[in-house]
């Protein structure tokens, strides 16, 4: 299939690339751009593993087509940390053991970031609801919920 030229804004940088129009954002990020931090769990939109942010909203990259996303701000886990400084969510996930195998972690971090942007002090139930579309098989979610709470507390200047 012939390739289409695309300009994608990923993690604040514009990238010009050529990809077949039916390639998903997940495939283009991983295979064309080398951004392998975005993982795949099902490629059917069922597990949340491949979540990225588009204009700050969580999007399943396995169901998104890059040709529809030109001019939109795409954020992957590689774009979550500032220069030399982890995002409070990343810091909290590392400190509290919220990442075991770490495979679902990028998608959960980005989903949680979108939650905290909307709702800086969510209740535990609100965190559960926000993350209900992200499967994790290792942690039992407990440390993930703890870490989102800690990050929210720290971001609000509470700790």
């Amino acid at each position, binding site marked *: 299939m012939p390739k289409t030229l695309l300009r994608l804004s990923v993690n604040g940088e514009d990238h010009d690339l050529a990809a077949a129009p039916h390639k998903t954002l997940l495939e283009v990020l*991983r295979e064309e751009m080398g*951004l*392998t*931090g*975005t*993982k*795949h*769990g*099902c*490629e*059917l939109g*069922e*597990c949340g*593993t491949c979540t990225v942010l588009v204009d700050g909203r969580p999007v399943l990259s396995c169901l998104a087509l890059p040709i529809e996303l030109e001019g939109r701000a795409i954020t*992957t*886990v*590689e774009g*979550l*940390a500032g220069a030399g400084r*982890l995002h409070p969510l*990343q*810091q909290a*996930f*590392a*400190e*509290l*053991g919220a*990442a*075991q*195998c*770490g*495979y*679902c*972690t*990028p998608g959960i*971090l980005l989903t949680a970031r979108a939650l905290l942007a909307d709702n800086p002090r969510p209740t535990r139930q609100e*965190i*559960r*609801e926000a*993350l*209900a*579309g*992200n*499967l*994790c*098989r*290792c*942690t*039992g*979610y*407990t*440390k*993930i*919920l703890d870490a989102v709470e800690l990050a929210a507390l720290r971001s609000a200047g509470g700790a």
Partner: protein
Amino acid sequence: MRGVGKERFTVVGQPLPKIDAWAKVTGETRFADDLSLPRMAYGKLLRSPHPHALIRRIDTGRARALPGVYGVLTGLDLPRVKFGILPVSQDEEALCTEKVRMVGDAVAAVAAVDEETAERATELIDVEYEVLPALMSIEAALRRPEVRIHEYGDGPNVHKAVSLEFGDVESAFARADLVREDVFYFEGNTHLPMEQHCALALWGPDGKLTLWSSTQTPHYVHRLLGPILDVPPAHIRVIATPNGGGFGGKLDPFAHEIAACKLSQVTGRPVKITLTREEVFYVHRGRHPVLMWVRTGVTRQGEILGMHFRTWLDGGAYGSYGVASTFYTGALQTVTYRVPAYKFEGARIFTNKPPCGPKRGHGTPQPRFALECHLDKIAGELGLDPADMRRRILAEPFTKTANHLTVTTIGLGECIDRVVLASGWRDKVGQLPPGRGIGIACSSYLTGAGSAIYWNDMPHSGVVVRADRSGGVAVLCGAIDVGQGSDSILAYLVAEVLGIDPKDIRVHAADTDLTPVDLGSYSSRVTLMCGNAAIQAAERLRGLLLGAVAAKLGVAAEALAARGRRIGLPDDPDRSVSFAEAVVLAESIHGVLAVPGSYAPPKRAGKYKGGGVGPSPCYSYTACVVELEVDRETGGVRIDDVWIAHDVGRALNPLLVEGQVEGSVYMGIGEALMEEQVFRKGLHKAPSLLEYKSPTTLETPEIHTILVETDDPEGPFGAKEAGQGPLLPVIPAIANAVHDAIGVRIDEIPITPDKILKALARKREGKPARVGPERLPRFTFPAPRIVESAFGQPADGVAARPFQGGEGGRP
């Protein structure tokens, strides 16, 4: 404890982040599918659409002609040897040549320029099948002996049949105040790691092969690839990549690994094969469906006099770990409670379904579910509190069981007391409003299998600790981190012994060229076995460092300590050197500082056939209380709280231990309430993450974890396992809580809403308020092997372990 008192630990016991936490939260960790190499081709397997069929003809001509295809393989391109993870079950082919035995059996493989072309090419391969009758259940497989899935085993479609009797069970029943029989069924389920299996192979022009794979057992893959590919193992290098979850699902040698290797050879390119999620559901090797019958004789106080346990395992199409799984369904019943006389009969039956194997708890969650529900029913009949009854009948520490397992420390009494207190058990059991219930169950699990998969006298785990002149330390170990934190545990232990910070250590794991053998990340063995090897290596290195510093300072080595990145006199900061200076001093005397440590478990296997399955250096113990609510309209179960206390020996890092316990509880809830691997006409009914139900954040309750420490003499700094045992009691605790809530027994896992509604309807109709198996297969077990019960005999003390001697060996 080796001059380092409990109070003087600096690293052990601290809730430190994992050493790879930063890589995990930034997406930097490279899983197998994140790797790519120049000129890499993508591989795909063609899989059988039939559960049972002869292969009449395979024509790959059209696939080979497709532009972009680099190579096509069938089984005829591979050496005609069958393989299997266990030496006794060599029954698999990477690409089937004559017969397929399940939907999903691979018959051909393609390498192409991209994944789509490879997939299109597989569709152009013409396979002519002669369809055979498919045997989709234990009953069907036993009923039709003329349809043979394999030509080997202990009978037509019987992979393995075992029968063992320890002590006189019938006379125990004759003396009992109550003899009770129950029947249970545990449906199969699967591991479902979030990462799909992936392999990348590079067969170099020098004829040497490198395989990167998401495997939990790089050593076994290395060992088996030689004969499978007819290549000297010396020319094969297997590198395990960090596993995106395993839970036992990445423990066998798999068709895609073998096909990637061979495709790389024939195409002269690196070849990567990543399974789809649907393929993972068929590759499977997960929890066996097990039908169980148990009869126990007890006194009025609930003291067990004798137990007879029978299991029938639906093994699926191949052997895999199934012989071990079969023994495991009978091995650990005796480790939790006092069972003076014990009889076990088990049979694993071949069916035309994906083969089952080890999943978290390997062969023991099913009988644990049965046993703990059975004990609850006994307590009910005797009018005893189920928590108190269990508390009274616990196994004795430092004794042997009827089936010759040596038990060391047991923290189960404290575990029960703690969950009973924390949950408010005494104010709740039998007293909650209708629809609400509370249940308890206990368990025990191995801390590492006492025997290797192949018999040998070599270490089960090896570690090399190498000190650099910079003061940095490299730890080389064959174990792969599957998310549980094994790399971090190695770093903590070495840092503790050498008096440095875990950050000063880099762990290099699971590369068969560079790291000493570790048998694999299974049976909860890594912390104990690699940990003990790491401590031995680090202590030997410390000995060299202390000796060199002692010579420099003109003091006795015994007077020195290694702490805070310094080595010297503990009370005199002026008479010490930095760790890096100590390395320079020692390297100047001894040359390169690369020190090995080795571990093999004490040889304690019972002297009977089958005695190799069950022994472990020590056993973890767990008690669990679950409180839940049953919706009597919908049959839905909502779990509100789980209290779980786990005897981990010592929590080397309490944060990581809690994580293992919480993950186990979660997985137990999924198995108890929703997860099932079921088939219709050979096809998986739910081969996707949407259809195969697993708990989300919304179904996972608050988990209250309590860690109990018993400082086991076998463990590294006293540690026992944490990754599997805590799953075991969760499932029966839920079943027992459902009974407390609505007065019905669901003797079948998973406890789905339809079963609850059916049981409630039966109760309303005045029938027995139970849903579960109604009949047992017609099957004659072999005559039992009679073995004297070792119940109550004292343990061999701390048994001598191989490789303990030498300088710096543990005292």
